[in-house]
């Protein structure tokens, strides 16, 4: 019984299978019919048209570049714009002898011979129909080429747009710059981070700062028009002109068309270019950085890295010589100190450590501790010196911050322990990138036991020594911070624990509709578990720094009509032997101490937080505090005249 059922199934299955096979076979024949019909259409019906296209008459696709978005400061002043200029371009598929064409262009003085090989490589890496920019031309050069254009098939001049930064050096670091698309950019396209075909007509690409990190926003979308060109280069049909029938165009009727480019979006920065210029001029002649932040939003109001450079150099095509000169300058103008400069924070770390100690209740703020001018670890002989060799006498926490007593903080750090210190400092943004919306940021360094173990190979070096905790108390040793991190942490003090991610871009304006989309400030973890009186204690001490007679910032901040909560800092660049005295005059300039200053003001209703680092500027109470004073006055009182 059972077996017969299986036999029946077998036949049924085969019948089912065969019926399916026939059904699918019919579909196959149908599809093949469609394929052959299509081939017949192309090869027989439309043959003549395509034959024309393949012999001389060619379909030319001309990509149309989008206009790059503008960059504004917070008051609507233009920081980056596009100016018309002449560009010498080459269409690779229309060139007969590339080598020879380039040589003749060089003889005419239109192309820099030094770039011969890099240009060849660039042209080779483009597809046939893509237009490659060879150089920007002056009016005279453009005229010289125009007269000889018929000698150069496949080479042309076109009106282009070049990026211009009206404030020049003021915005080199803060806004960044664009540069000519290089073969390495093309690699980036291949990895898929940007759409290659979107750049078919574009010759400049964001290389640093805002121009780079907002590249996709600023760039826009490419358009194109299509032309049918005969062998002599005469345009027989142009998709931007209406469908005038010179050729039999039916086969392409649907596909030959124009798409206009979509301009890039404009970007509005929180930067105040007036404040930026004041800060820049205050840093004139120094190396270092200034970062000013609006504590209520995280907006960067000013970001200066000195010395500065002119971003306009890059957009017109910097010669390799100029670039080498800029790059090998010992002052490193291209180095973005505000974001990437790693500095020992020195005594500017003290308010933060004071706050940590209060929070962990590892000290009694009112208790006075004797400062004899040095500190010795029990069981060791090394003397950790105070900057004031005769000592501060008995000091409490308030006084220790006001007078910047080192000995008090050696003990404070020891009492807290490196583990508490590192956790707390990381929580308020040290040792990690702040996440600002441009790349190139350094994370600084907050040392931990684990870090030291991983960093050194010799077993005896891997141990964390108590002495290393001691000097962390005055922001020396392994600890490093960027000016941006210092400003960010200072803004957190100003708001009593509110932390906003620093940002440059406040809003994006649609390039076509003009609709402005403001982005909300990004709130980071709030230090809400710290008691209100502790913030109070630290703020009072920092105001004391600028107001009290013993305050280290008193001279620079004398006579401000607002209260400043500040802290000076001095970071050693090299260490002195035990018995040596620091003598500023006798020391090579590059080995002098770095001067630092952090502040927020007005202390009762903070509108600005600022961090200043002056490399080899000596103590922070003089140079750095003076720079900070100019920035604060300019922002809060509107002082300092308008730029350029």
């Amino acid at each position, binding site marked *: 019984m059972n077996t017969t059922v299986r036999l029946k199934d077998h036949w049924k299955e085969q019948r089912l299978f065969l019926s399916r096979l026939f059904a699918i076979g019919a579909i*196959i024949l149908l599809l093949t019919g469609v394929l052959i019909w299509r081939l017949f259409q*192309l*090869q027989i019906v439309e043959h003549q*048209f395509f034959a024309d296209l393949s012999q001389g008459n060619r379909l030319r696709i001309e990509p149309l570049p989008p206009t790059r978005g503008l960059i504004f400061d917070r008051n609507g002043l233009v920081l980056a714009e596009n100016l018309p200029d002449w560009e010498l371009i080459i269409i690779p598929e229309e060139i007969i002898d590339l080598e020879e064409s380039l040589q003749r262009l060089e003889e005419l003085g239109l192309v820099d011979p030094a770039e011969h090989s890099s240009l060849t490589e660039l042209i080779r890496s483009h597809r046939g*129909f893509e237009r490659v920019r060879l150089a920007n031309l002056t009016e005279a050069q453009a005229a010289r080429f125009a007269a000889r254009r018929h000698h150069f098939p496949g080479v042309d001049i076109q009106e282009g747009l070049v990026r211009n930064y009206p404030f020049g050096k003021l915005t080199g670091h803060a806004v960044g710059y664009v540069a000519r698309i290089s073969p390495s950019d093309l690699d980036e396209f291949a*990895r898929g981070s940007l759409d*290659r*075909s979107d750049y078919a007509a574009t010759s400049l690409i964001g290389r640093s700062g805002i121009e780079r990190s907002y590249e996709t926003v600023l760039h826009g979308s490419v358009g194109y028009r299509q032309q049918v060109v005969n062998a002599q280069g005469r345009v027989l049909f142009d998709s931007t002109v209406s469908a005038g029938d010179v050729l039999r165009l039916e086969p392409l009727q649907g596909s030959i068309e124009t798409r206009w480019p979509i301009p890039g979006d404009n970007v509005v920065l929180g930067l105040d270019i007036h404040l930026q210029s004041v800060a820049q001029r205050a840093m004139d002649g120094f190396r270092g950085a200034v970062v000013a932040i609006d504590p209520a939003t995280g907006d960067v109001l000013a970001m200066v890295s000195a010395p500065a450079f002119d971003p306009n150099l890059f957009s017109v095509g910097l010669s390799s010589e100029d670039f080498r000169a800029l790059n090998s300058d010992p002052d490193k103008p291209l180095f973005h100190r505000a974001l990437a400069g790693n500095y020992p924070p020195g005594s500017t770390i003290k308010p933060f450590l004071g706050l940590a100690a209060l929070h962990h209740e590892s000290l009694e703020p009112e208790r006075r501790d004797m400062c004899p001018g040095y500190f010795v670890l029990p069981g060791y002989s090394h003397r950790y010196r105070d900057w004031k060799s005769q000592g501060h006498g008995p000091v409490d926490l308030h006084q220790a911050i006001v007078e910047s007593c080192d000995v008090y903080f050696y003990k404070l750090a020891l009492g807290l322990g490196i583990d508490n210190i590192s956790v707390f400092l990381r929580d308020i943004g040290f040792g990690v990138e702040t996440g600002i919306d441009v790349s190139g940021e350094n994370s600084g360094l907050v040392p931990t036991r684990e870090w030291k173990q991983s960093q050194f190979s010799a077993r005896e070096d891997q141990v964390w020594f108590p002495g290393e905790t001691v000097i962390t108390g005055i922001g020396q040793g392994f600890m490093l911070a960027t000016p941006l991190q210092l400003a960010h942490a200072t803004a957190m003090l100003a708001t009593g624990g509110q932390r906003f991610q620093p940002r440059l871009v406040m809003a994006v304006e649609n390039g076509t509709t003009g609709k402005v989309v403001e982005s909300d400030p990004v709130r980071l973890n709030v230090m809400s578990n710290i008691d209100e009186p502790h913030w109070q204690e630290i703020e009072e001490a920092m105001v004391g720094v600028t107001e009290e007679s013993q305050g280290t910032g008193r001279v620079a901040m004398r006579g401000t009509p607002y209260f400043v909560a500040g802290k000076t800092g001095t970071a050693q660049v090299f260490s002195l032997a035990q018995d040596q005295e620091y003598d500023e005059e006798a020391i090579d300039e590059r080995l002098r101490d770095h001067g630092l200053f952090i502040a927020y003001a007005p202390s009762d209703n903070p509108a600005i937080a600022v961090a200043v680092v002056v490399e080899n500027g000596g103590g922070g109470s003089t140079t750095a505090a003076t720079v900070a004073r100019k920035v604060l006055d300019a922002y809060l009182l509107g002082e300092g005249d308008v730029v350029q």
Partner: protein
Amino acid sequence: MSSSSINLAIGPATVLRPLRLRGFVMDAPIILTVFAICMLGFVVLYSAAGENETLLLRQAARFAVAVFAFAIIAQVPPRMLRLWTPWIFSVSLGLLLLVEFRGVTGGGAQRWLDLGFARFQPSEIMKVAVPMMIAWFMHERTLPPTFKQLLILLLFICAPTFLIALQPDLGTAILVMASGVLTVLLAGLSLRLILALGAISLGSIPVLWNYMLDYQRVRVLTFLDPESDPLGAGYNIIQSKIALGSGGLFGKGWLNGTQAHLEFLPERSTDFIFAVLGEEFGLLGLLLLLVLYFVLIGRGLYIAAQAQDTFTRLLAGGLSLTFFVYVFVNAGMVCGLLPIVGVPLPLVSVGGTSMVTLMAGFGILAAIHGNRKLLAP
């Protein structure tokens, strides 16, 4: 029962005796047609690759390896193949996972495994392993598959397809999926289920579309209509249409294709070689190639119809239909009927692994036919 099964076993065996040469299985129609296609392929490739002899020699070497694989596999009795199937499938799936984590990147996608002496793409094996797995699974069960069995079959198809699409290798993923789906269709999926699945997938399109972001929609649109993006993928299509169209009925003659030789036509020795054939040998050349392909497909379907058990029947049918999809997707893409997915023209485009797996598939077909009398219980 006994009478009919004896009939099944003896009848065909006597008919088939001439196809077996001293016990060596080699299906003459298949191998002759394959040789013809490959010869035509070499001729076109020589022109497409700019008269490059080394490239031609390398392709010939790959062909030799592929023929060797064919000859070996054709000797394996289908019963043995069936027993190995779960292993072959599992190992290939494992290799796919391995590629995902430690594969060699080439051309932007991770799809190669480095064996030291050669690199190969595990995804290629799946074109054969998936139909095998489905045929194996249904062999022990009654056709058509129940809904529950169907879900398991879908898993066999989707797991490798998903892994390959992730590499990302859309072309191979589509072929693997097609090979599985076609085999399931042959297994007699009920018409109602086909309609229901079709309706569900059609219905889900507007929903998906709704959830897509603007740029994703643009991507899908340019994928479906590459000519709307003449600066990207559309450039290739415009150039290949010019190449095909200018070929006309008789073509421009061997080595005379201007589109191909002036380097307007991209990927001309791989995915777009069909256009080179069309330009130099015209519609007649293309029809010749299509006829040769149809001889192969027809032979495969005949073998499927003659096969004696569920496993061989489904496998033979699935492999032959996959081969058709292969041809149709490539030709359709080159003449602008279908979106651009990287599918080579079988047996003609440059490339090693695909040729070997194709020939392995034909080896299986030959084995199924040549070993028929051994199938009697």
